């Protein structure tokens, strides 16, 4: 075994005042207090890297590698470089892409920032938004029961209230912070539905039902994982941000970008954080974000190879981190097995890899990508399409 991978966050107990705000904020009961020393500690197994404890700590004694205030500030600087007056700060769960939110507000020139959970954003960030001269910040969180981090949305709302008070104290207009709640859900086209019942079977939330010759999705139950979209044999289910046609287009674009070898990584939004904020740099790696690795679609994998990609990496969450009732990674495995069988007929099944990764441990995704690229070097030729 190599050296233990580095955990993404740390509680600096030596300066900690034992206020246990982090403990009460943690939605996953991952933080506990030692009854004798009164010191808090985090259980890496229970932690899901939501970052809520980071924003909860009043004394700055929790440090995190993901979206700490320095990272957020530099992201903000990059986002407002063109001097837009309005920022859209959205949770990746309900507004993963810029095009998902355009048209929601009157403002035309929008800067866009998307994070895995808004509950992780500390108060200072909102102050900073005012300082850099933004006139309006639209914050789009998930609806409470839709939140993948259980308490992410309520925590974000509390933070926002506090930030408003603070802004007023500092002489800014507190109404610049505006909050909306959103969801992304599967929509079913009953004209295309063939009533096969596949969605009923694969949905982790029992949202679809078959009624008189067509399926119907119960919007209150759907959590937008997109598994049914990837499995519907009639292509009758759509989901904003991961439509079949849009992803097909994205696969082609990513495959066309220069660089060698070309690795397309279909990555669950909750399995890896860092690479989502970086554009394609002409290197090997091209990231296609997925609402869940279970959205990873056999058709898109084939399409990638047809368009000249050398390898496809499907990055799922590690089992206990799955945000879809522990079914997302398993559906992804099933899709991968299906794709592998098809690729075997072309002799290129060695050019696909499934990796379970988590943002909890730093560098996991990178080392998987590196290992995969090495593997591709040794794989028999024949990838890269035509």
């Amino acid at each position, binding site marked *: 075994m190599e050296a233990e991978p580095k955990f993404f966050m740390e509680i600096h107990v030596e300066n900690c005042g034992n206020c246990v705000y982090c403990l009460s904020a943690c939605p996953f009961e991952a933080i506990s207090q030692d009854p004798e020393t009164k010191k808090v500690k985090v259980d890496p197994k229970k932690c899901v890297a939501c970052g809520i404890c980071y924003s909860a700590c009043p004394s700055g004694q929790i440090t995190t590698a993901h979206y700490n205030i320095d990272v957020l500030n530099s992201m903000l600087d990059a986002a407002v470089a063109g001097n837009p007056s309005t920022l859209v700060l959205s949770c990746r769960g309900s507004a993963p892409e810029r095009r998902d939110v355009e048209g929601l507000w009157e403002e035309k020139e929008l800067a866009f920032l998307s994070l895995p959970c808004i509950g992780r954003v500390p108060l200072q960030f909102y102050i900073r938004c005012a300082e850099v001269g933004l006139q309006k910040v639209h914050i789009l969180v998930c609806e409470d029961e839709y939140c993948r981090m259980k308490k992410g949305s309520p925590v974000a709302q509390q933070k926002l209230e506090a930030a408003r008070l603070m802004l007023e104290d500092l002489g800014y207009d507190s109404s610049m912070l505006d909050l909306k709640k959103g969801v992304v859900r599967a929509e079913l086209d009953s004209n295309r539905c*063939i009533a*096969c019942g596949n969605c009923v079977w694969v949905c982790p939330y029992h949202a679809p039902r078959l009624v008189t010759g067509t399926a119907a999705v119960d919007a209150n139950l759907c959590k937008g994982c997109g598994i049914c979209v990837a499995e519907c044999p*009639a292509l009758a289910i759509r989901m904003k941000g991961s439509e079949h046609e849009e992803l097909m287009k994205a696969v082609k674009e990513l495959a066309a970008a220069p660089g060698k070898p070309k690795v397309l990584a279909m990555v669950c939004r909750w399995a890896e954080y860092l690479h989502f904020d970086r554009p394609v740099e002409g290197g090997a790696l091209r990231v296609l974000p997925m609402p869940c690795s279970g959205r990873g679609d056999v058709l898109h994998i084939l399409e990638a190879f047809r368009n000249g990609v050398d390898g496809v990496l499907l990055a799922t969450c590690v089992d206990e981190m799955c945000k879809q009732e522990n079914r997302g990674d398993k559906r992804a495995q099933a899709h991968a097995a299906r794709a592998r069988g098809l690729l075997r007929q072309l002799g290129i099944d060695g050019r696909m890899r499934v990796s379970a990764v988590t943002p909890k441990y730093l560098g996991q995704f990178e080392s998987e990508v590196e290992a995969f690229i090495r593997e591709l070097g040794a794989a028999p030729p024949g990838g890269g399409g035509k």
Partner: protein
Amino acid sequence: MLQGRRRILVLGCDGCTQPPRGLREAQTYRTLLEMALGRKGGEVDCVAGTVSKQCDTALLAQNYPELVKGRDAVLSLSCALGVQLLSLQYPEVPVFPGQNTVFLGYEHRDEGWLREACQACGDCVLGETGGICPVARCSKSLLNGPCGGSHDGKCEVRDDIPCAWQLIHDRLRQLDRNEWIDGIVPPRDWRSSRDGGVRYQKKDEDWNEPARKEVKR
């Protein structure tokens, strides 16, 4: 099988959907075919489409003629019925089966298997046997089972085959209907099965009305 063909229609079937082989499957195989044929060089032009039922002439007429126009072969993803009806109705283009049709069965999704459950013998006994078919599910198609090869509820032929007669006994006992197993069942009339060559059945008169012009899809 498809040697030398370059303009192939991969045709899904939205019919019985067990397992579903509709538009997604057709597109999948279209892509695979194009990649495989493309390696050999030359022009490749495959398309994917689907019809609501390949075994229904009226439904085929809706969009099949349009889909098959200009194609030099059809790869059908339906069961053998669709493959044969396509050839019969539209003889201009050769049709090839995309899969083997194995049996009349049902699917267990949790455990991931398809199991044979009917042999289309033409003389149904399910009403007597508690909904479990001894013709298809007993390896010997016995009517007065079980035989001596039934052990711990398993068939002697293979231990992944549950003994159909064990299942029938259990079921009838559960229904409190032991009378059928208590008696001796006389030999059946097997003429409705595979006797006398290819089977044929004329539908009733009222089935033969002209097909409706508009069929809801």
